């Protein structure tokens, strides 16, 4: 298939990530943007850019017809969907195929068969991949309770079409089952338009470990080892690492081979991730297959030295996978922190706004995948993730210390963010010991810091700032407060000519 000009149907850091690989490969890129994103970094960095509508995603980034239209106008012959938006939309994948445009992702059939969690369980069971004991069959609520008692409580209720923790509920006792099921169905219906809910046995203090897989159009499949993503808040990943401190070489091989059974069963093409839950005894259970590039793919790139977007493009061109299973490297350890525009001191409330200053960390084995710049607006319409900071070290502890130091260099102003929260996590003993599980952050280890010994330095600067503001006001009554010209204001002035 031809891939000579790539339209990136996404925004933010993942769009920049794809552009960087395209620049290395010498492939021109086409950005699309909503009206809220005219000044976004992906528009600045792409070779071409087209507006696709108003700020809300369902009126712009999610509108397939607009993306197809920009393909036609720009002559792009391939689309990279990133993650989110249209990335796991089988209808979109099919529409691109029909229009003669290469979709850089799996075949629509694979997306489809993995879209329903219950259907995916059936595929995994048939392929011989272990799944969490559970009930994926449709039955009445009463029968479901009986079946759940057979599995044994506690059980987990999950939305069949779900994701991101919505419609999920942990049920400890049979007495709670019926009302919990009703609420789970309600949430599933409002979030995914489908009230199907299934039951799984709840694993105690589970670890979330996933396998990166890759397939090509010639029937070859490999796994690029595991990532552990157990550090979560409200079922959202916060920190990811590779490899996992829990995984032994034997377990890695067993998990990798189990993941490939599922991949082969659906004749998987491109990048995918098989998610597992693992328990303390190193049993592991299939959860789902994510049919896209994951947010956390950089940790895999660190330990393998490979460029997963490049591999996606090579596979989309119909080339064979560049390596066999035995050739995939595994070097050292990598960590990733998701940097969010949110306020950990105020229950992680989102904090959109203008980034008034930005200093990103650098040095040995530090990688910052950012979607913003100093002066950029972080819009209220999209995901609060503004950057992914990742580090590598020969050992897990060196990767952690490097991350701690890099977080110390990272300075973002104008909006609230979770950098200090991540720094505290890097110093949190259970995290450092690798004793991870998905409930690690349920007990609040994080508390708002008091005023430390360096307060006087901060106050001295504020005093100088007050003095300068007074002097500036006296000198030039027309100046604005922070002394910096506001690009948008100037633009406004220009518009008013």
């Amino acid at each position, binding site marked *: 298939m031809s891939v000579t000009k790539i339209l990136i149907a996404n925004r933010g850091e993942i769009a920049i990530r794809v552009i960087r690989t395209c620049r290395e490969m010498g492939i021109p890129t086409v950005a699309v943007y909503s009206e809220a994103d005219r000044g976004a970094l992906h528009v600045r960095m792409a070779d071409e850019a087209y507006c696709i509508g108003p700020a809300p995603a369902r009126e712009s980034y999610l509108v397939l017809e607009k993306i197809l239209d920009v393909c036609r106008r720009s002559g792009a012959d391939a689309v990279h969907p990133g993650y989110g938006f249209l990335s796991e939309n089988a209808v979109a994948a099919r529409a691109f195929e029909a229009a003669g445009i290469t979709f850089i992702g799996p075949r629509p059939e694979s997306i489809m068969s993995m879209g329903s969690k219950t259907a995916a369980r059936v595929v995994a069971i048939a392929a011989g991949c272990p799944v969490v004991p559970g009930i994926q069959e449709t039955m009445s609520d009463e029968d479901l309770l009986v079946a759940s008692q057979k599995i044994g409580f506690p059980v987990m209720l999950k939305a069949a079409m779900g994701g991101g923790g919505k419609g999920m509920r942990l049920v400890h006792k049979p007495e709670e089952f019926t009302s919990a099921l009703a609420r789970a169905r309600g949430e599933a219906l409002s979030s995914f338009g489908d009230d199907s809910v299934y039951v799984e046995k709840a694993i105690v203090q589970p670890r979330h470990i996933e396998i990166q897989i890759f397939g090509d159009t010639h029937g070859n499949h490999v796994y690029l080892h595991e990532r552990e993503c157990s550090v979560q808040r409200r079922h959202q990943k916060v920190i990811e690492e590779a490899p996992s401190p829990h995984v032994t070489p034997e377990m890695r091989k067993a998990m990798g081979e189990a993941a490939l059974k599922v991949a082969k069963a659906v004749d998987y093409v491109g990048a995918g991730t098989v998610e597992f839950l693992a328990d303390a005894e190193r049993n592991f259970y299939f959860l789902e297959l994510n049919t896209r590039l994951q947010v956390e793919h950089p940790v895999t790139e660190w330990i393998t030295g490979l460029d997963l977007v490049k591999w996606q493009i090579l596979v989309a061109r119909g080339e064979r996978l560049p390596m066999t299973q035995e050739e995939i490297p595994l070097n050292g350890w990598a960590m990733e922190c998701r940097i969010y*525009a*949110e306020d950990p001191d*105020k229950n992680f*409330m*989102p*904090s*959109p*706004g203008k980034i*008034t*200053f930005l200093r990103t960390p650098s040095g040995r084995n530090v990688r910052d995948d950012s979607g913003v710049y100093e002066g950029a607006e972080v819009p*209220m*319409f*999209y*995901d*609060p993730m503004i950057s992914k900071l990742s580090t590598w070290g020969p050992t897990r502890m060196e990767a952690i210390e490097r991350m701690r130091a890099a977080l*110390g260099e990272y*300075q973002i*102003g*104008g909006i609230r963010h979770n950098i*200090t929260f991540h*720094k505290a996590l890097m110093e949190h003993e259970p995290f450092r010991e690798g004793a991870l599980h998905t409930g690690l952050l349920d007990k609040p280890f994080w508390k708002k*810091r008091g*005023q*430390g010994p*360096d*307060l*006087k*330095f*901060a*106050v*001295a*600067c*504020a*005093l*100088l*700032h*007050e*003095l*300068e503001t007074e002097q500036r006001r006296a000198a030039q009554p027309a100046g604005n*407060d*922070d*002394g*910096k010209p506001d690009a948008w204001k100037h633009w406004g002035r220009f518009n008013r000519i």
Partner: protein
Amino acid sequence: MKRNLLLGKESHEVELLHQDGVTTLVWEGESHSIDILELEPNCYSILLGGRSVEVRLDPAKAPDSDTHAYRALLYDGAYEFALVDPRRALLVGAAAAGAGGGILSSPMPGKVVKLLVQPGDSVQEGQTLLVMEAMKMQNELKTTTAGTVTIIHVQVGATVETGTPLITVVAPEP
């Protein structure tokens, strides 16, 4: 340059002096000679007795125009405090005392997706009055004042900025 430093409910007097080429910080009655330099807009480098500290100052929204709220980022972590001109401090205090009850205002830009109260409703401290959506997240906004809802300033579907008044709650007479 004298200011009152407000830390929560505490207030301290602080002063920055500049005489004969020497800058002095008066802090809790002690004078420290400091070397302070603005290297980038709102970014300062300070040397004090050998120690080198870099400070990023982030002027924040304050409840009134005479109180200047700051957030400062140091390598060590973040600090939050406010400064008031002592000549203005009395005014500020008086204004704050005059405000009976409270207005719940928006802590962020976002969209109002649900209103949970109506004018006339009695509400408890900590009760959720409204749900806002921003960045794909729904956020419950709670009142810090118990009392009676008197005004709803917004409608469902409205897009609001940081600081937009949302709901007024009047506390009962003491």
